[in-house]
């Protein structure tokens, strides 16, 4: 057969889109678990925070670590947005065709995709703001600092929107990713798809519930702490000191 | 005036047409295919069951070869077939199927080891040999001694057609879709192309070609209920008939398939019975063994259809608002088998009947299915009377089916005839004989004649409604020219059809006056053509006072070899006649390899021709002598009826089989 020189860029872009999406989605799951530790008490959340600042490894906290991680996520976020943008309607005509198609076709998975475009587009802005703030204010994470930001610094409206966008986009994205690459296909792809879809809904509901409870907890603390906004949290028992 | 010149014009884009087109293209001739629909939508796709070829790979096919396939085919034809043509066919069928395998048809394969199968309502274990593993397998079909019908699950025709169409694309065969040939250009006994109408915009185009091939399939839609696609209206045969020069053969030989669903007439494949399905009556009683103790449900199609009709007439049919029917029971095969090998049947049952064939019985009755008759040709596929006109596949009366076709021999014929006729056409085009000498004036005359006909249909006032005429024709054919026929009904049919034909000259296209895409106009001119064809069928049936194969006369139940071992030849030499001209072509017994005998169904009602006994004596003596001398089967065959020289050189080689010629 003849020698063929192929252009591997489209494959790379496709791979980057899926891989970055997967990393971001898994990161968001982990992130949600971390921030939701506030539901277990301020102490727990505080310990988790300083854990990520390297406290348990180095003996003191380095918020720079968080800055670096946030920066890395921001980079992946931008990469994902850049490659995923190729898929969006690129002019009004295309948008209109798509809109009509969705309206007349009434097809679940196509509609889901529309939600993904919508939430993805929203996150260009919402996600960027959040990531930038965390990157530049990485020291201001903690039971009080975070709550203050949410309430006293008026971040709660953004977080509500961001939470909705992230959870919808992420779970739809993971579902689509599994189908796109044929993961968990088993012997009957049609049956596995039904299972995957059910799982997707379960995951969305779970994370949205967890997310809103968490946000409520921070808001509650934020309101209670409004008078002392800016003050940092300290453990009530100082066991931490003893750990090297 | 739009004229397109090419070497070979092929009318019809089904299996036969496409195979001819790729064949001549490979030989270096230009070719244009005209097709009513995208070729992949042709009716060939609907052949679910399979293609007969004596590969002898599977256990139940062991010992099969050309000789067995030949004798099955001749018996099936009730000795109406041309035996030389049948020989050419059985010799080339293995080649055709292997060629298709190379071109990509995913034939179902033999799997080594044991598998269970249902034979005569019993579960049987069959053990396939190691050495056959991975070769093309076969299933059982009616009227065959061996399991010889090769298949791809239940989409054989579909897979074959797709492979063939893809091959044509690879060869860059030019295909003009949605073009309908409406008349043949001819002069002095020489056909030089066709006038075609573009169904998308109404444009008339003249195609001028050295050779014109009609491969438009059958004419089942003359009947109100048919398994055929709705485009199988016999327009190819009709335009040949309208030349007044070309002849049609055995038009009355119409096959009824035993198992089409009620009421819509969609086919459930013979594979249902081949794989072990049973026919049951209103009491759930399996009646076929009473009539045909040996072959039971797997008797030849014409026989099963008649037995079913007889049984219904005895009052054993299941009553329904669409008339009486019987049951086809495939539940015995099990869900797994049905979902894998008979999936198309399952889909049809679900979509059109709302039943599950793994649990429910399927309502069936015999329904018009196949046209053995068609454009009468020589073994080369060329019309006997109109030079430069060729035909093959169901459209032709090449005559390998005689008065009844075996299941699985039709798709097989399309590709075998296609590959042979392509060679003969290419030879013709290579020779000086094929030189055309036609002036544009002649072309213009033919073009204008068609244009005038269209205008007349569109501008006529107070004329006839084509739909009314056509529906009447369909029911006459159904009621009076059906499975069982008799003189009285046939005479009435001919009379009324003649009347309808006269009225059809006065058809008016109501309201829909577009010169472009216009379904009403299409229906109008097709109805005129179909009525002519219907007359050839009914009139041929009326005149044939015997019963042979699918032509069954209640008033003449004998197969009369003394008077009727001949082909009906129909023509329409004068534009103004209202009934076709009929003549007969003898089928010479003294040349037969396999002289007429008893088919083995029911009572032997043959009126024996004295020639038969004589010929049988000659055949027996010669065979015995050669066997004594140690001759092999090829030498014996060649001594009885030489045919191999008639084949194109490239197809003369002997076929390999496991344990033979390998």
């Amino acid at each position, binding site marked *: 057969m003849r020698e063929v020189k192929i252009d591997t860029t489209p494959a790379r872009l496709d791979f980057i889109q899926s891989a970055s999406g997967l990393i971001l989605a898994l990161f968001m799951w982990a992130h949600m678990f971390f921030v939701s530790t506030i539901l277990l008490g301020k102490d727990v959340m505080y310990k988790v925070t300083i854990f990520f600042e390297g406290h348990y490894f180095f003996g003191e906290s380095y918020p720079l670590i968080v800055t670096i991680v946030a920066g890395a996520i921001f980079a992946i976020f931008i990469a994902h947005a850049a490659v995923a943008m190729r898929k969006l309607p690129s002019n009004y005509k295309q948008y209109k065709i798509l809109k009509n198609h969705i309206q007349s076709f009434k097809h679940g998975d196509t509609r889901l995709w529309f939600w993904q475009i919508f939430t993805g587009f929203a996150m260009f802005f919402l996600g960027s703001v959040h990531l930038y703030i965390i990157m530049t204010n990485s020291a201001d994470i903690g039971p009080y600092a975070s709550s203050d930001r949410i309430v006293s610094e008026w971040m709660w409206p953004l977080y509500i929107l961001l939470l909705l966008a992230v959870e919808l986009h992420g779970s739809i994205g993971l579902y689509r990713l599994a189908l796109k690459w044929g993961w968990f296909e088993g012997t009957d792809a049609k049956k596995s798809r039904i299972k995957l879809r059910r799982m997707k809904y379960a995951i969305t509901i779970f994370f949205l519930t967890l997310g809103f409870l968490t946000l409520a907890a921070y808001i509650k603390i934020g309101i209670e702490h409004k008078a002392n906004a800016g003050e940092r949290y300290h453990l009530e028992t100082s066991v931490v000191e003893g750990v090297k | 005036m739009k004229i397109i010149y090419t070497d070979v014009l092929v009318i019809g884009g089904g299996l036969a047409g496409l195979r001819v087109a790729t064949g001549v293209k490979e030989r270096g001739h230009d070719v244009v295919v005209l097709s009513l629909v*995208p070729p992949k939508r042709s009716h060939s796709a609907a052949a679910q069951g399979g293609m007969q070829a004596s590969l002898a790979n599977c256990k139940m096919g062991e010992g099969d070869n050309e000789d067995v396939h030949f004798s099955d085919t001749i018996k099936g034809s009730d000795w109406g077939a041309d035996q030389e043509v049948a020989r050419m066919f059985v010799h080339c069928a293995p080649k055709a199927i292997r060629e298709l395998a190379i071109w990509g048809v995913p034939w179902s394969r033999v799997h080594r080891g044991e598998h269970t199968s249902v034979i005569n309502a019993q579960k049987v274990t069959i053990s396939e040999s190691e050495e056959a593993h991975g070769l093309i397998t076969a299933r059982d079909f009616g009227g065959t001694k061996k399991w010889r019908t090769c298949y791809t699950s239940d989409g054989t025709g579909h897979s074959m057609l797709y492979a063939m169409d893809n091959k044509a694309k690879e060869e860059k065969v030019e295909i003009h879709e949605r073009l309908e040939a409406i008349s043949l250009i001819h002069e002095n006994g020489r056909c030089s192309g066709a006038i075609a109408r573009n169904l998308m915009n109404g444009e008339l185009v003249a195609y001028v070609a050295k050779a014109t091939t009609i491969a438009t399939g059958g004419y089942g839609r003359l009947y109100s209920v048919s398994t055929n696609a709705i485009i199988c209206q016999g327009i190819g045969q009709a335009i040949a008939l309208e030349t007044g020069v070309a002849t049609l053969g055995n038009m009355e030989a119409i096959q009824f398939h035993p198992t089409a669903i009620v009421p819509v007439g969609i086919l459930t494949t013979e594979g249902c019975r081949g794989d072990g399905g049973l026919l049951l009556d209103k009491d759930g009683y399996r009646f076929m063994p009473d009539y045909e103790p040996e072959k039971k449900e797997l008797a030849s199609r014409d026989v099963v259809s008649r037995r079913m009709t007889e049984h219904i007439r005895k009052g054993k049919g299941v009553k329904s608002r669409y008339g009486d029917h019987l049951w086809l029971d495939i539940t015995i095969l099990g869900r797994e088998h049905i979902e894998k090998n008979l999936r198309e049947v399952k889909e049809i049952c679900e979509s059109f009947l709302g039943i599950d064939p793994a649990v429910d019985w399927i309502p069936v009755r015999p329904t018009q299915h196949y046209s053995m008759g068609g454009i009468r040709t020589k073994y080369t596929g060329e019309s006997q009377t109109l030079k430069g006109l060729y035909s093959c596949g169901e459209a032709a009366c090449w005559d390998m089916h005689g008065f009844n076709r075996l299941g699985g021999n039709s798709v097989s014929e399309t590709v075998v005839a296609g590959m042979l006729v392509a060679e003969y056409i290419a030879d013709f085009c290579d020779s000086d004989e094929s030189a055309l000498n036609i002036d544009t004036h002649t072309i213009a005359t033919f073009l204008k004649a068609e244009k005038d006909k269209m205008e007349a249909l569109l501008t006529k006032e107070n004329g006839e409604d084509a739909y009314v005429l056509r529906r009447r024709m369909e029911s006459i054919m159904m009621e009076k020219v059906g499975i069982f026929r008799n003189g009285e009904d046939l005479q009435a049919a001919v009379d009324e059809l003649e009347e309808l034909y006269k009225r059809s000259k006065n058809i008016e296209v109501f309201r829909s006056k577009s010169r472009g895409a216009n379904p009403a106009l299409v229906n109008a001119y097709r109805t005129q053509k179909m009525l002519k064809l219907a007359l050839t069928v009914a009139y041929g049936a009326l005149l044939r006072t015997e019963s042979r194969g699918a032509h069954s006369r209640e008033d003449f139940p004998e197969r009369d070899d003394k008077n009727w071992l001949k082909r009906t030849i129909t023509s329409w030499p004068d534009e103004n006649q209202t009934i076709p001209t009929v003549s007969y072509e003898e089928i010479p017994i003294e040349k037969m390899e396999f002289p007429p005998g008893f088919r083995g169904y029911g009572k032997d009602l043959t009126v024996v021709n004295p020639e038969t006994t004589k010929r049988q004596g000659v055949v027996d003596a010669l065979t015995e002598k050669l066997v004594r001398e140690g001759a092999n089967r090829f030498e014996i065959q060649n001594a009885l009826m030489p045919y191999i020289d008639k084949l194109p050189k490239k197809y003369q080689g002997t076929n390999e089989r496991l344990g033979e010629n390998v």
Partner: protein
Amino acid sequence: MSEVKKERILKISILRFDPTDPKDFPHIVTYEVEEADGMTLFIALNEIREHHDNSLMFDFVCRAGICGSCSMLVNGQPKLACRVLTSKLDANISLAPLPLFKLIRDLSIYTGEWMRGLSERVESWIHDKEEELAFDKLEQRMEPALADEIYELDRCVECGCCVAGCGTIQMKPNFLGAVGLNKVARYHLDPRDKRSDEEYYEIVGDEDGVFGCMTLLGCEDVCPKDLPLQSKIAYLRRMMIQTAAKN
């Protein structure tokens, strides 16, 4: 059985247009048809043409769900009309031609031209340069399971439903669509086709090919033949990524 069932009156609204008529424009015409037992859209449409309006154009060939000619939008859903029982629909039925394909007239569309282009683009035939037509010899062997698997993908009838159900191709008409990707997967699977992975990559390794698919799965859900489109497109995507990684 004595009670007379009152049949429904179906109101069938059809999007009609004759592009060859300069005076015509797309408009909806509603026809009333009395429903009958076991009525399909094939029967209903023929009744309209025979008794109400003989100029109505639509395509049926096999009328048995085998040939793929009669695909149209039935209440917005791409379907083979011959297989749609009216009893499963509401009395108000809307019919429209499939989008994207060239319109011939009314419900009749020119899928043939589109599918031909597609076949030529992906070269949907066996590529084997050394192939000699050894038709006298025993055929090449093939594993029975593999033959079945190829047939499974070979079952496509090119009806165009998957194209009409694909959001991607609506926006980006150069996209191959499920019908094209399925063909490539079919030949990729077939050992008789000797094309290398790189040659396949040339055909589908870009955003008009497999990387353009956004996995909306309209194709999978409307395919009248239940082809495993999602699974095969995923397979093709994995193959093409592997091929790119090798290079």
